[in-house]
């Protein structure tokens, strides 16, 4: 008689084997390779922080063959990177992805990796599922997935898999302090689309440095402490010492409020800044820019 424990064991090993065919080793750092997932034919997704060199990247597929890969782009905000390799003779077929609603606290999960030739597995739990959140690098993630699982070599960049063999997301050890987390598949799809289209994730940019100041006992605003004269705000007429009180009629009192407003969708669109200038309320309209590469590097 096959016990339930054996059935569970078989299911886990089969899930690992099935998804493991798409788990690759990425040689883009010294010593131990990192893990990645063949997300689509010819496209590998991994954790951005494991890519330490952008040239001479070699990927080892599950069948042991090596293939050269090029970096498509990286997004430090969500810790995701995409790599391209020559499409295979046997395309992997569509990835079996779990919907966001299927990710629940208490679910049994496997973290797969390939820090070399061999597939590795670790077993754990989804310890908490939270709201959409913004990482300390400013990336927008559709659900906070906190994991109770062991972090071994090759954890970051590997897939989080449920007992049915569905991919829940991409694992990373660096986004949350004190716990491993997974970037949900929905976020991966969105970021991957932007990386393939633009080579980076466009991020709204004004080109000002701001600091919270009290305007009265009740209200606060953001004083402009520096202006990039060639940036969107500088060209739009924002001056040093202006106090920004609103963007598109939405009050702002913290630089994070501005950041939250400047998502990818805002790039190229006009934004009306409510200002207090020399004691008078006024407004200027600027065109939101895309954060320049140098700025992005600084925020990595």
């Amino acid at each position, binding site marked *: 008689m096959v016990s339930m*424990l054996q059935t*569970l064991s078989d299911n886990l090993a089969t899930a690992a084997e099935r998804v493991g065919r798409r788990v690759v080793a990425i040689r883009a750092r010294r010593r131990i390779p990192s893990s990645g997932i063949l997300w689509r034919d010819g496209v590998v997704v991994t954790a951005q922080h494991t890519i330490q060199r952008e040239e001479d990247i070699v990927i080892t597929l599950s069948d042991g063959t090596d293939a050269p890969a090029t970096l498509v782009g990286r997004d430090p905000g969500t810790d995701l990177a995409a790599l391209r390799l020559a499409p295979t003779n046997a395309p992997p077929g569509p990835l079996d992805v779990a919907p966001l609603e299927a990710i629940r606290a208490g679910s049994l999960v496997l973290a797969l990796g390939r820090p070399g030739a*061999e*597939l590795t597995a670790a077993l754990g739990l989804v310890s908490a599922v939270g709201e959409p959140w913004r990482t300390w690098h400013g990336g927008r993630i559709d659900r906070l997935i906190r994991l109770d699982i062991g972090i071994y070599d090759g954890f970051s960049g590997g897939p989080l898999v449920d007992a049915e063999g569905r991919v829940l997301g991409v694992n990373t050890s660096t986004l949350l302090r004190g716990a491993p987390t997974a970037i949900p598949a929905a976020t991966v799809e969105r970021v991957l689309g932007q990386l393939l289209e633009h080579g980076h994730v466009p991020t709204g940019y004004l080109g000002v440095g701001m600091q919270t100041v009290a305007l009265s006992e009740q209200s606060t605003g953001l004083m402009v402490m520096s202006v990039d004269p060639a940036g969107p705000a500088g060209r739009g007429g924002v001056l040093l010492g202006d106090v920004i009180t609103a963007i598109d009629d939405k009050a702002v009192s913290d630089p994070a409020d501005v950041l939250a407003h400047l998502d990818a969708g805002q790039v190229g669109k006009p934004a009306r800044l409510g200002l207090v200038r020399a004691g008078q309320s006024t407004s200027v309209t600027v065109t939101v820019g895309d954060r320049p590469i140098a700025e992005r590097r600084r925020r990595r």
Partner: protein
Amino acid sequence: MSTADLASDVSRAADALRRVTVEIRTNRRGLGAGVVWREPRAIVTNAHVVGTHQTCAVHFADGRTKEGRVVRTNENRDLALIEVAGAGDDVEAAVRRDTTPLRAGEVVLALGHPFGMSGALAIGVVHASGERWIQADLRLAPGFSGGPLADAAGRVVGINAMVAHGLGLAVPAAAVEEFLRA
């Protein structure tokens, strides 16, 4: 099927493993575990459990304690063979799995005596399986050394030997067979 079935499966597997696991004491060192490998008198443990001792006390699951003689050790593979005189034929030997390869993600169980606590169970999965070591994602402690690592069916797949980078390392059953043949 319910999770209660799963829990009873686990405790049944642990009970079966406990019957083939012994406690090994040497006069100076602490406690280790061992597995009744083939016949009632052939017990396998780690070389580091017995150290340089020629004899040790073997405590069986049924409560009996016998004197064991260290027949052979292999420091390189961290294995030792202990023979017990007159253990009786009623002592069960472990059911082993030494041919079917282990798959990453398979459930594994370990039994040992951490910090003097007899017959403690740890559960996890196969992290990776190589010829030299089985790497298991489960939480081991001192006292698990020399004890069994078993699959979900309770078949012994290796002898737990050490912890490295948080992973349990076990000597594969096939390597134990090779050691016994040598």
